[in-house]
């Protein structure tokens, strides 16, 4: 059965077509793998009955020749996506008992195309974190370990559960959300492929909001082509989200494998930061070499406002979050801690319902929006954001098709290694990824190698708005060159 969990989407589809195995068998194999991997804490809710029911329905459609593009493909869904009749808590105590009556547009698209829900995956509480340690459900342990060490490693965050589940072969693919790097950083840490598409490419309807102007959904997969197939189903215009964009969804999978000959790839010089480990520098150089070998041209570009991106991000994102999370007040759903009056109910519910990192960001956001500080913080951060966007526009206008950067400033860290003291140390993990959210651009993280301890490292490709296709083409080149990475099973 192990073999069934190591398939790519294309292999699984071929298997169904040749009747080598059924969708039910494929799902059962994954449910067994999930059960055997509970020590990773990747799933916060398993939905085996629903999974089997959906798989059987898939088998029926396969038999009648009405299979969708993702028919019978077992997926894991980040706990930020509302799933009808299936608890959706954003891994927060304040939503611990919340069962939506509605299905997010992105997951509805996946089920429309035949995919199977295995369960909900762990994430940092309300997707606020870079290590999965802020989850109310406890941290996720990465399937990866340093060579010769038992130290539990973080899969990154906030989509740590989805990344770990894909890396540990507990599902064929998973969904994530990315506000400042929450797909790309865990993808890099777990040797998986993760893409945050252009802002507006996927509907945000039914996804628990963190920072509305930055949030985007995207897939995790074990190959570039699988990620392309998944995004093809997830993406699309949605009238229920007015920030989603009405333009056709291209055949992303067809772009994976397309020639990159003659493409000009920007290398932003500001991403060469102080104290960057030599192996990250080396990996980046290797990436350039691979793309060059495939016929692309490397061009140094300048994104002068890069250094302001992280501080500006940590104003904009908490500001929006402080407002978005106001609805969790104990009045209509979720946790309610009674108090002597309505103010006490609010205070107690929110004090007990939110963890420390969420509370910190609500306070930061409330502060930067308050009278007397609004102009100094929020307004300036928005100006910075405009400049960052313009940096990219200028570079792309100069004839660059995409940019290549490291995905993270280091390989994965151990659980607890960065969560003890200064929160800013954790925030610095997002230094290469937040710019992309601030500019609303697509970014993909592709596994490119291992560090000295045997932990995965990823390269990030940043594309022009709605040019995910180029990212898949370039990502495929890196994947062919670097190979794919799989942790040794120890759990």
């Amino acid at each position, binding site marked *: 059965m192990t073999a069934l969990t190591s398939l790519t989407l294309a292999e699984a589809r071929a298997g169904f077509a040749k009747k080598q195995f059924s969708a039910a068998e494929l799902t059962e194999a994954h449910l067994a793998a999930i059960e055997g991997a509970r020590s990773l804490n990747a799933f916060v809710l398993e939905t085996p009955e629903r999974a089997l029911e959906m798989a059987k329905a898939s088998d029926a459609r396969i038999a009648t020749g009405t299979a969708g593009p993702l028919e019978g493909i077992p997926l894991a869904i980040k706990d930020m996506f509302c799933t009808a009749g299936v608890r959706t808590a954003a891994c927060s105590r304040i939503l611990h008992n919340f069962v939506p009556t509605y299905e997010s547009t992105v997951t509805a698209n996946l089920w429309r195309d035949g995919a199977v829900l295995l369960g909900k995956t762990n994430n940092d509480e309300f997707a606020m974190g870079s290590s999965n340690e802020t989850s109310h459900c406890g941290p996720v342990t990465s399937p990866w370990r340093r060579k010769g060490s038992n130290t539990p490693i973080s899969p990154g965050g906030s989509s740590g559960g989805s990344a770990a589940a894909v890396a540990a072969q507990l599902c064929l693919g998973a969904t994530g959300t990315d506000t400042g790097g929450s797909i790309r950083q865990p993808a890099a840490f777990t040797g998986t492929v993760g893409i945050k598409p252009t802002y507006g490419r996927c509907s945000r309807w039914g996804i628990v909001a963190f920072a509305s102007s930055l949030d985007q959904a995207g897939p995790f997969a074990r190959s570039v082509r699988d990620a392309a197939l998944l995004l093809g189903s997830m993406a699309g215009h949605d009238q229920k989200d007015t920030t989603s964009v009405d333009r056709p969804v291209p055949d992303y999978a067809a772009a994976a494998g397309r020639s990159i000959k003659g493409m000009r790839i920007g290398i932003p010089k500001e991403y060469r930061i102080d104290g960057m480990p030599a192996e990250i520098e080396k990996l980046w150089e290797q990436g350039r070499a691979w793309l060059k070998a495939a016929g692309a041209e490397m061009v140094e570009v300048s994104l002068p406002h890069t250094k302001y991106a992280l501080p500006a991000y940590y104003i904009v994102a908490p500001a929006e979050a402080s*407002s978005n999370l106001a*609805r969790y007040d104990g009045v209509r759903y979720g946790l309610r801690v009674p108090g002597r009056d309505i103010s006490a109910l609010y205070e107690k519910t929110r004090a007990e319902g939110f963890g420390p990192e969420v509370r910190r960001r609500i306070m930061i956001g409330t502060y930067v929006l308050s009278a007397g500080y609004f102009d100094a913080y*929020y307004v300036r951060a928005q100006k910075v954001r405009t400049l960052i966007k313009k940096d990219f526009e200028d570079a792309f206008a100069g004839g660059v098709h995409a940019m290549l950067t490291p995905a993270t400033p280091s390989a994965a860290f151990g659980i607890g290694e960065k969560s003890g003291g200064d929160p800013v140390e954790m925030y610095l993990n997002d230094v290469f990824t937040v710019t992309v959210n601030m500019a609303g651009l697509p970014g993909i993280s592709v596994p490119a190698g291992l560090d000295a301890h045997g932990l995965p490292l990823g390269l990030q490709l940043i594309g022009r708005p709605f040019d995910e296709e180029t990212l898949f083409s370039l990502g495929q080149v890196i994947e062919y060159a670097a190979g794919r990475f799989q942790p040794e099973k120890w759990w």
Partner: protein
Amino acid sequence: MAAPDKPSKLVKGASGDWEVVIGMEVHAQVASHAKLFSGASTEFGGAPNAHVSLVDAAMPGMLPVINAECVRQAVRTGLGLNAKINFKSVFDRKNYFYPDLPQGYQISQYKSPVVGEGEVAVDMPHGETIKIGIERLHLEQDAGKLLHDRHPSMSYVDLNRSGVALMEIVSKPDLRSSDEAKAYMSKLRTIMRYLGTCDGDMEKGSLRADVNVSVRRPGAPLGTRCEIKNVNSIRFVGQAVDYEVRRQIKILEDGGKIEQETRLFDSDKGETRAMRNKEEAHDYRYFPDPDLLPLEFDAAYVEYLKSGLPELPDEKKVRFTRDFGLSAYDADVLVSERALADYFEAVAKGRDAKAAANWVINELTGRLNKEGKDFAASPVSTAQLGAVLDLIGEGVISGKIAKDVFEIVWNEGGDPRAIVEARGLKQVTDVGAIEKMVDDIIAKNPDKVEQAKANEKLLGWFVGQVMKASGGKANPQTVNELLKKKLKA
């Protein structure tokens, strides 16, 4: 009718005159079937929480989608207020916690409203027309409702109104008396009812006002203002302003100072009072709603809406006085409601317009008001009333009989001409027949005849007797002439 003397707008205090300065924020519910950002119904009534969508209840992951109809209505209202329409406006979040506000923020327009400056002409009863500046009009969400009297220790929340679209119309501080404040609000209501952008139904809370009141010595700089929140009828606006003006003048004349504060109007006691410990420095943390793109449209859209606007009361009044020769007063009354004006026009067409105005204003409006009906539900159609007027004009019935015919049509319906025919209500113009009746009355009342010869005023008594004998049908003019002749003889 002579216009009454223009009254002084100043208020007399113990130590001299005071000038009142009033600015109003009128909240008008947009006439639309669905809420501002959700598809839920805006229908009034219904069981608590019957009209609540996932968006209105602020469920996780829900997103607002602007209702184009509400935008259209706001722009049309802006055009009706002769205001600048902003082709680009922004929705902001006004953040505060309250159980009737599920999102924890109200979506409103703060820095960039959809409608900018405008002006409204308000006709005062003494004949003066005042111009009131409009500062802005913006769209925002209404909140839900808390019910505190259903449970000993808890409050219930009804979200039916949550998310319903409101237009907040902010005036400049151009109003100088409670009468002007009332007339202004009344004019806004009329304009919006003409446009069909707000039903103006105060009982359903479709129109409420926050009234900012201050007083000053004539010519002095503006005084400190108090804001009276949520006044829900035009009459109460007048009462609240009058009370507040007296209160402020008393404080100032006693050597006190006005505290800038928010006050409530208690309609039972007819007084305003400060709201309890209202969070002093309430910081709403306004910022642009990231779930919504800026609201943008082009000049062609505005032109298109402009071309579809109905004739508004100001233009209609000019036309009624010019084309129908009506008095300003009659024209004012007739244009106060679009349905009334339309009704009048239909009746007046091809007939004596002044007579039509009289009948519509006095008979029909009086009768409708008595029964609490509006023009849409009038039991007497324009064709029926027109026929009654025609019968008078043709001399077929007298004005008095006409009122009886009107009454019959009101109660039983039917064609007035046929009714007159069938019930023998036709005016008797046969001089011979009338003469016979006159002679009869004279013969029966010799004593009165003697008195009448001495006192002409007694003629009226004889007219009455003859009319009675004829069942009101005798041509009064003929009766008069015959009596005069015979009693003089």
